[in-house]
């Protein structure tokens, strides 16, 4: 068992070993290698943040040599494609990205300090529900999942969204994460009808229902929610199993309509933190390079081919970790 050797920072010697003995340029996903000339690269050599920026590589072999030779603390590449990446000029388009960091999940069952198996698993569950919405509602394709070392990145290469601006990306985040309270009044022919989100089994109301149910089912007695006092939280936890088979109507009447409204309003603002919106709306962000080493936790950042079976503690642990002396 290697658990006590895991998640410790890598030494410079371990970094060198990783890039020389274990890392292979073929591990860099094709979505990077086929656009290497258009991207800006960034490196962190000392563990003080990626301040070596504006780096460009004409081909993968130069990137290979650089990583072998420098064995950086961390390596990044831009989500943006540029005409002149060395000046971050001539922006062409950017991947649409979503960053789910395990330590920032708004309601964590584990309550651990950093990241652990439980919250990483939770992050993967969230990623999988985001993918469902991206495909089913938004009809987007060409989606890649990357294990970042402390969570997951979703990277989209669907041409129809790559030129969209920050505002639209912000709205996509809201849609996916269920961060906006769906309207509950609909008018037709001058008459207004009340329709709760859980009575509409498609579109955004459905997404909101799913995310909200997920949040409520993961609440712990310690969870802090604006507008939700201890009494309400207790009642929610007591009655929440109704939601497991979608008995929202009964759940709502047990809680009381006013308090229900408070609850979902509060959950909506909490949902906003499911993904890091700052990452999604930043058209020039640099993201950790898949295949590179996350030296802080000694884990490989890597593309996840099958999210059903992926286990970071099996697949993303570099060899040198197993050889550490305890």
């Amino acid at each position, binding site marked *: 068992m290697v658990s006590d050797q895991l998640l410790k920072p890598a030494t410079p010697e371990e970094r060198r070993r990783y890039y020389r003995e274990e890392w292979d340029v073929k591990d860099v996903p094709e979505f990077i290698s086929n656009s290497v000339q258009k991207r800006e690269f960034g490196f962190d050599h000392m563990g003080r943040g990626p301040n070596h920026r504006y780096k460009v590589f004409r081909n993968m072999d130069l990137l290979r040599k650089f990583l072998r030779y420098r064995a950086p603390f961390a390596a990044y590449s831009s989500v943006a494609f540029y005409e002149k990446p060395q000046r971050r*000029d001539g922006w062409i388009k950017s991947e649409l990205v979503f960053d789910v960091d395990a330590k920032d999940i708004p309601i964590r069952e584990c309550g651990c300090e950093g990241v652990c198996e439980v919250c990483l698993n939770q992050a993967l569950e969230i990623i999988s529900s985001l993918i469902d919405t991206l495909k089913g509602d938004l009809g987007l394709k060409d989606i890649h999942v990357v294990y970042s070392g402390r969570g997951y990145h979703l990277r989209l290469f669907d041409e129809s969204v790559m030129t969209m601006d920050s505002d639209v990306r912000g709205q996509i985040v809201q849609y996916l994460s269920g961060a906006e309270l769906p309207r509950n009044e*609909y008018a*037709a022919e001058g008459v207004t009808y009340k329709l709760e989100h859980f009575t*509409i089994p*498609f579109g955004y109301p459905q997404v909101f229902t799913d995310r909200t149910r997920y949040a409520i089912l993961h609440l712990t007695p310690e969870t802090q929610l604006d507008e939700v006092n201890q009494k309400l939280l207790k009642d929610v936890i007591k009655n929440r199993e109704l939601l497991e088979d979608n008995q929202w109507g009964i759940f709502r009447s047990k809680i009381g309509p006013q308090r229900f409204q408070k609850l979902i309003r509060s959950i909506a603002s909490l949902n906003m933190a499911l993904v890091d919106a700052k990452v999604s709306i930043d058209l020039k962000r640099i993201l950790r390079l898949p295949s590179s080493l996350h030296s802080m936790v000694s884990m490989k950042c890597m593309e996840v081919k099958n999210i059903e079976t992926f286990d970071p503690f099996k697949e993303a642990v570099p060899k040198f970790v197993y050889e550490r002396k305890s």
Partner: protein
Amino acid sequence: MNKYSICMVNVAFINPFSDEARQIVREYGNLNTIYQENGDLIQLVTRSPSQDISDEETIPHNIMDLALKRIEWYVKKKNNPEFDYRKYSYLYNRNITNFDVIAFYLLVQAISVKFGPNSRESRVMVEAQGKLMESRMGELLLSEKREILGTILNTLLPGEVKWTMFADLLSSRKIKLTDLVLDQGNIILDKDYFMENLGYKLEHRDPGKMYDLLIGDKIKELIINRMIMQKTEDYISEVYQKSQRQVEPNPILLELADNVTEILNQPMATYGYRGGATGKVEASPLNQEAFPPCVKIVLEGMKSGGRNDAIILFLTPFISYARLYPDVFRRNTTLRVSDVDPELAAVEKEILPLIYEAAERCTPPLFEDQPQEKVNINAKMGFGMHSEIELKHEGETTWYTPMSCEKVKLHLPSLCKPDKTCKSIGNPLSYYIRRLTDLKYEEATSEEPG
């Protein structure tokens, strides 16, 4: 029934790309008649409800006139707050449909041939068409509107309306992604599609009724409006491509195109630097005394962490709009920087220096470690992602409107130190206008003797 008593709305009145409209074009005879005094047209115009006929200038005498009036209507409506719609009532008169469709095609062809798709004239044509459709829809009875929307929707193929086509509507918040009913990337508008693909999921509810509730008229109208604008744009490109292969364009079209340019040049000359006496706020040199607390904080310089957002997303839109277009929220029309500042003199001499100074005062100075952020400043003023501000790039990005107070609280909470004026406004720019008026008033009253 003669043609003056038609009371049904022809779909061509709203959609110039409908079969009905194409039929009108096919049946229209000789192009040379568009210059001839047209008695039928004049009669329709002068008999339009609430039409002002006191000034002969306002009455189009032939189809060529009508075409120009369509553009003039849009430009005046957009730039002149005292726009008098009674001078153009005939444009809302459904009985002019036949002439209107011909005028539309003349305009598009003239503009495409002379200026091509990436011109100011083309942009105005597309926007004018969108606005005209919107205004005409607003005049219809609800039942007529529904029928027209239904007819147009039926001509679209189900699954044709991808949400990704409407990035600009989303970006400008005219529609919200969460308000659309989406399935497999399509915006659900068509009733049959809804019934077939989503309706069955509903329990204990009548799917037909749910369709009426969930897929509102407003969304349909916006989407259709945008699609017609898109088709206008595509058609301009198409005509332009074809015209490149022709030797000599029709002189009638070239003349019409020149007249369009003339109309566009008029308002630019009068809008911008005039003093206003009607309560509207014109572009004028900045008065820093009237800046809200949040702007003052940024001008003093930000610490590392919030620098980029404060300078790029917050300050740049605020300063540029405060200087050039303080009335943006009240007038609710989109302008470009060069519409107000055609030589970019205010941009170069007043706006950028102020922003650069604020960037310089940051710790560490923003451009010292992130010189590329200058490009983002240009982008936020609509000049694309380029290191220099140049007119040819204008429009590649949008001129960002100033963040609302709500957004400031979300993104830059440290800036929000409200004073008593803040309580009554929702946007830092409104604060500026409010304080400007107050200051003017204080000045005026303090100058009074005694």
